[in-house]
């Protein structure tokens, strides 16, 4: 145990400290931008980022992953904040945490295996598009100065690393644009115009809401979606970090850790958050591997924001927009566009459907649901095609032998029935199912109908080679082998 603690916390102190600093600098603009998306004061997102990062450093299951206030979560809160206000958001955040802990206890993380690669790509792309779209209000009906500043900011972000990789280029963008705006006294919108910034350390507070069933009815649907999206993004990010670092993570602990972090965040006045794909990649790139980097990112963030609040208020929105455009470009999986043609059409449809639903509803959970359902349907369709019914006559044309090969279930029951020739006048039929498997009651029902149809034509039917699992289904649900078969199939009249 001491070994693990030492390995997780103290084996990469230099790398974690520097990476923590880089991440903290990148978190500030994001936290502010996501607060604006959610429609709350920047301090709500900043406190949330601090508390998520610090708590998850201790409770998370994936060292090296960064959690904070995120765009995916912010998008889900917009209506709640608009209709009911901040206090309900804080309560929803706490409830989200409780639900996430319950999900972790119930091992719902195992459900992640039903989320296919295409759905994950769709999720990531949709997220990138939404982050980009959220910047558009800052870029419409503004003077040319804002466009110039945004373009200049993007130029610094992408070109500076060619000169030096020792200073974070988004930080330089922010510093340079803020300096220019202040020096030239430019009339542009700044972070200070967007709402209150933190001026003190966060304090414990209980959300100011009536504790009754009505409140629960308001926040529960939001918390449920927040829980799902938070865990989805966290587990996806954990897998990405697993791959990047070639190590394993404890997904169950991550779920419970996310829950704990959200509960803590709700009680200090922060909005719900989760793991961040972009920030985690930046962390790994900057040399962060352990828990220390996430802890320090949170701590540095708070220190900088609380002590530099007057300066942070002067940051022009154009600088934030530039950083957020970078985040959305970096988050988008560009290779997926090239692969649209290479991949099977069904995968591409799943990916695009996920993106379209998310962009239309602003709800990542619905997109993932549609993606998962579509993947399931496509899969059933594919497996359903793996069914062959062949036949031959035996015993000088008096017996017909049907050979069934493949999977019989709801999607292939039609093919199964179509394989039989009921018009043929024959004495006996032998159905060999030793190379087939019956998966569900639709399959059993099809078998029943086939058998009874043959019997009505006065053909004797024999089924051979039913495997154990199919046998159990037949014993429980089939009627062709029960004495009153025909009556029951006809509805008992």
């Amino acid at each position, binding site marked *: 145990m001491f070994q693990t603690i030492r390995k997780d916390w103290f084996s990469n102190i230099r790398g974690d400290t520097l990476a923590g600093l880089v991440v903290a600098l990148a978190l500030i603009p994001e936290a502010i931008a996501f607060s604006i998306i959610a429609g709350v004061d920047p301090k709500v997102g900043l406190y949330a980022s601090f508390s998520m990062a610090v708590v998850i450093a201790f409770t998370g299951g994936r060292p090296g992953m960064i959690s904070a206030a995120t765009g995916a979560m912010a998008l889900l809160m917009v209506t709640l904040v608009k209709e009911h206000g901040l206090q309900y958001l804080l309560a929803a955040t706490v409830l989200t945490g409780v639900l996430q802990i319950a999900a972790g206890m119930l091992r719902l993380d195992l459900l992640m295996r039903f989320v296919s690669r295409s759905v994950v790509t769709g999720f990531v792309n949709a997220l990138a598009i939404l982050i980009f779209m959220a910047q558009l209000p800052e870029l419409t009906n503004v003077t040319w100065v804002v466009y110039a500043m945004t373009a200049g900011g993007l130029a610094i*972000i992408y070109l500076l690393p060619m000169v*030096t990789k020792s200073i974070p280029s988004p930080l330089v963008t922010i510093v340079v644009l803020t300096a220019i705006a202040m020096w030239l006294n430019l009339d542009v919108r700044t972070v200070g115009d967007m709402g209150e910034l933190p001026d003190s350390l966060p304090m414990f507070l209980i959300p100011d809401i009536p504790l009754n069933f009505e409140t629960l009815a308001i926040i529960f649907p939001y918390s449920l979606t927040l829980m799902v999206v938070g865990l989805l993004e966290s587990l996806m990010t954990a897998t990405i970090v697993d791959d990047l670092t070639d190590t394993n993570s404890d997904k169950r602990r991550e779920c419970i850790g996310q829950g704990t972090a959200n509960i803590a965040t709700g009680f200090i006045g922060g909005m719900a958050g989760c793991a961040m794909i972009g920030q985690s*990649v930046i962390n790994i790139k900057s040399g962060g591997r352990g828990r220390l980097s996430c802890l320090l990112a949170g701590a540095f963030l708070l220190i900088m924001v609380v002590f530099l609040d007057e300066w942070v208020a002067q940051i022009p929105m154009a600088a934030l927009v530039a950083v957020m455009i970078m985040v959305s470009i970096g988050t988008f999986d*560009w290779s997926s566009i090239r692969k649209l043609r290479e991949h099977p059409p069904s995968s591409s449809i799943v990916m695009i459907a996920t993106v379209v639903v998310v962009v239309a509803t602003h709800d990542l959970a619905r997109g993932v649901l549609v993606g998962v359902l579509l993947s399931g349907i496509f899969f059933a369709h594919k497996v359903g095609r793996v069914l062959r019914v062949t036949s031959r006559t035996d015993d000088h044309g008096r017996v017909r032998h049907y050979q069934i090969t493949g999977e019989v279930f709801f999607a292939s029951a039609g093919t199964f029935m179509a394989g039989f020739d009921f018009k043929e006048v024959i004495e006996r039929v032998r159905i060999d199912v030793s190379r087939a498997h019956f998966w569900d009651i639709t399959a059993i029902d099809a078998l029943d109908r086939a058998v009874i149809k043959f019997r009505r034509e006065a053909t004797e039917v024999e089924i051979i080679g039913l495997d154990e699992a199919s046998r159990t289904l037949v014993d429980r649900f089939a009627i062709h082998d029960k004495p009153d078969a025909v009556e029951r199939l006809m509805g008992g009249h």
Partner: protein
Amino acid sequence: MNKVIGCIDGTETSATVCEYAAWSAQRMGAPLEFLHVIDRHQEVAPVSDFSGNLKVGAQEELLQQLAELDAQRSKLAQEHGRILIDAARSRASELGVKAPEGRQRHGTLVETLGEMEEDTRLVVLGRRHVDPAAPDQPVQNHRLERVIRAIHKPILATAAHYKTPERFMIAFDGSPTGRKTVERVAASPLLVGLPVHVVTVGSGASADDALGWARTELEARGFDVTTATRDGDAERALGDYATEHAMDLVVIGAYGHSRIRHLMIGSTTTTLLRTLPVPVLVLR
């Protein structure tokens, strides 16, 4: 099959590990396997780029970069390990071991030995000890101690130089742990037939009783037994006895009485591991 595992890491102890491992395997009639682990220290970052920006395809690019770095390091470590293992295997064959095997695994030594524990009968590991010529030189065996804490199989921690054991001693304290150590030595083929000294620190009637019990137990198995008691500081007294009587190997028990002790391996064990100039067989 239950094997003798010789842990080779390319440091100066590896040659000695090879000799002792070959000797143990022959004494016990057990198959011998040399183990080399490649620990890539994934918890430490190989690169750091503080540009803090996300370019197009940032994630794939980073994955590719990290994978290439890891592949390079692994390849070097793999080749290095293969050479070490081949050398150890041919040396063991010369010494008369039949078909010594080699194995390379990724991970830490403790992790790997843990995975292999089922098939393990004895682990032979390198050990550093205080050089009489430079007694103030600090000596640490962190990895060895970690293995002893984590692995519940007998561990033979070598000395700096190989000498075929001709006589050995058991550090015996009369406790249930000590008695178990004696029983296990008596039952094992590793040391059978060698003259044994059972040494207790601290005299008294109970010590004499315990030594009497140990003598009977070992003589029943045909050992030639000498018993002795010493006074004073246990670590020093045991070390002095080993030097005076030219012992070639010291057996100590490292069983814990409580869960905490179980986790911590006692300070006596740690000190003996640091000071004794002869191999130490640790029984848990």
